[in-house]
């Protein structure tokens, strides 16, 4: 384990930014925190997390896939992919780090999504332990340890110092570059912080939320549950929960007519939208209740069914904080899961 002083972070950021684009959580003028490209003097936010997750760096909301140009009877197919740049995402929380395990399952499974794979190969995640989790946090429900985040490098921040530990080859290589700015140290301070975080996690209002009632094989049990209607009653059908979610990965592919050709692009889709997965045969989910059910069944039943029991929620709490009507996965788990989950 290595450490550096909190005061020296600007130098550390400068060193990282020499070889790669560096993005870190920065407080904006509106008081909200967003991943921002580092430039000299920008400081690391003290807030718990960003409004939008780090998913955007690997799976952007919109990206062009391919271009077609027509001239006479010829169609030219143009590969518009640009080479991925090396980049580092700093200060990612344990929940968001876990979200990449979920996304990898989707995009790196054969046939591999080369757009996503390229960014994963070029990106480094520096994950920060959570010293002050908030009431909407429930990562522990999904077995995530906020005190020991995964990622290429894990870091722990104290009042005066930052502690570093690499977990992968990529991480070790980066930490090596920071050797002049960091020094070898014992794990004592980090161990103390881990204990403190563990105690805090137990005090969180959602600490007892369990996944016991969910997982593979539960489709028949919950699909026709009468509670879906009541839960979805006031859902607006907006896409907020899906767009702030670090694991939502549905997208649509569309063609943009340029006049003399086509730009084929993909953009995030939302199961909350009325034309989600609309096909020539029609719309398989006609009501908001069915679309609402899809979102939660996908995260709690279908995904684990197809992915060795892995849930596709990481308990980051963004949907809890952002839903305009405060309907969310926790309320769904407690209601649909019944007594097992109350």
């Amino acid at each position, binding site marked *: 384990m290595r450490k550096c002083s909190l005061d020296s972070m600007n130098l550390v950021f400068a060193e990282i930014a020499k070889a790669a684009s560096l993005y870190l959580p920065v407080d904006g003028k509106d008081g909200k925190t967003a991943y921002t490209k580092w430039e000299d003097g920008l400081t690391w936010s003290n807030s718990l997390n960003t409004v939008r997750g780090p998913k955007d760096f690997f799976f952007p909301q919109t990206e062009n896939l391919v271009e077609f140009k027509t001239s006479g009877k010829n169609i030219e197919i143009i590969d518009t992919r640009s080479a991925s740049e090396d980049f580092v995402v700093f200060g990612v929380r344990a929940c968001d780090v876990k979200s990449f395990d979920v996304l990898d399952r989707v995009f790196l499974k054969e046939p591999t999504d080369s757009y996503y794979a390229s960014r994963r190969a070029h990106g480094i995640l520096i994950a920060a332990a959570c010293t002050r989790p908030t*009431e909407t946090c429930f990562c522990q429900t999904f077995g995530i340890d906020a005190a020991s985040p995964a990622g290429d490098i894990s870091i722990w921040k104290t009042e005066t110092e930052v502690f570093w530990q690499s977990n992968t080859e990529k991480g070790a290589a980066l930490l090596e570059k920071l050797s002049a700015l960091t020094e070898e140290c014992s794990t004592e301070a980090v161990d103390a912080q881990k204990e403190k975080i563990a105690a805090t996690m137990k005090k969180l209002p959602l600490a007892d939320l369990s996944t016991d009632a969910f997982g593979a094989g539960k489709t028949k049990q919950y699909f026709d549950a009468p509670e879906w209607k009541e839960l979805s009653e006031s859902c607006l059908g907006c896409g907020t929960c899906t767009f702030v979610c670090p694991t939502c990965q549905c997208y649509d592919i569309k063609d943009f007519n340029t006049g003399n050709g086509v730009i084929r692009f993909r953009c995030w889709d939302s199961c909350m939208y009325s034309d989600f997965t609309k096909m020539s045969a029609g719309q398989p989910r006609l009501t908001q209740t069915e679309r609402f059910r899809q979102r939660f069944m996908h995260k709690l039943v279908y995904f684990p069914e197809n992915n060795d029991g892995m849930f596709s929620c990481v308990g980051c709490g963004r949907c809890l904080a952002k839903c305009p009507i405060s*309907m969310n996965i926790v309320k769904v788990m407690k209601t649909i899961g019944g007594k097992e989950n109350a």
Partner: protein
Amino acid sequence: MQKITRDQLIEKAASLLANGTVSCVLGWQKGEFDYDITPAVFETEDELKANFVWNDFCGANFSKYLVSKTKKCEGKILVFLKPCDTYSFNQLLTEHRFDREKVYAVGIPCEGMADIAKVKAIAGDGISAIDCSGEKLAVTTIYEDAPVMIDAKDVLAERCVNCKSKKHVAYDELIGEDGDVIDSARFDEVAKIEAMTPDERFAFWQNELSRCIRCNACRDICPACTCEKCVFGNPNSSLENKSPANSFEEKMFHIIRAFHVAGRCTDCGECSRVCPQHIPLHLLNRKFIKDIDSFYGEYQAGAEVGSRAPLVNYTTDDLEPGEVFERGDN
């Protein structure tokens, strides 16, 4: 603290259910943390007693829900309306969006609603309970032993700081005393933006709107947005887009929406309340309201049912297009 208590509202709802005036109640349902309240339909007194809530976090405007709920609920539906909600209620009636006969509206006074982001800025993260029943909000967090006491006026939502009216403009019955229309400072922020140079103003809006993630929450919560199928969500419209394809896309969506609700927007502020990216969308609408006021005389959408809004009316005193042009860059 609200002057009317939860118990008074439950008692009122229960008696209207019992005597058959209404068959269901549109109300606020409690959540996990005392501030995450969900609009819900209640059908029995037991349901009300178990889950109904009325506190400083009941900001949700129920007027728009009446469009769908009046079609679903057999018999009349009871709706509780705060003063600002009654303007949306009237505006929807003006546009014939729901059947007035299917609604029993109970007006309730409002002391202003709290913004949880402002509460957190003072009390910090990890809120385990908020007690709104006393003079001050008592906010308990997992990090402090004693609750943090907060003056409600320090955490008022922006729209409540600039409250335009404590007067109910529609109701079948009123609980408590009615208030007055307020001479608010709600156009001050608009005036600040008007005072910018065109370049500054463009930069201001570009910065704000570039954060848009096109979640459509502003549109879907808006009581003036009740099209059965929005062009921006209709794959057959050729205008549909699910994401901000470029910075023009965002401006196009928000500015077209602002134009579409011009003259009909009551300035309820729901758009800005729900925006996950904290874009001050209400300022676009307020600019339209301010201009309409200065061009055609003061007009408040929803102040009465059936009024002809200036933009859909003609009088010989109407402003000539040339006069608008003469305002130059502004």
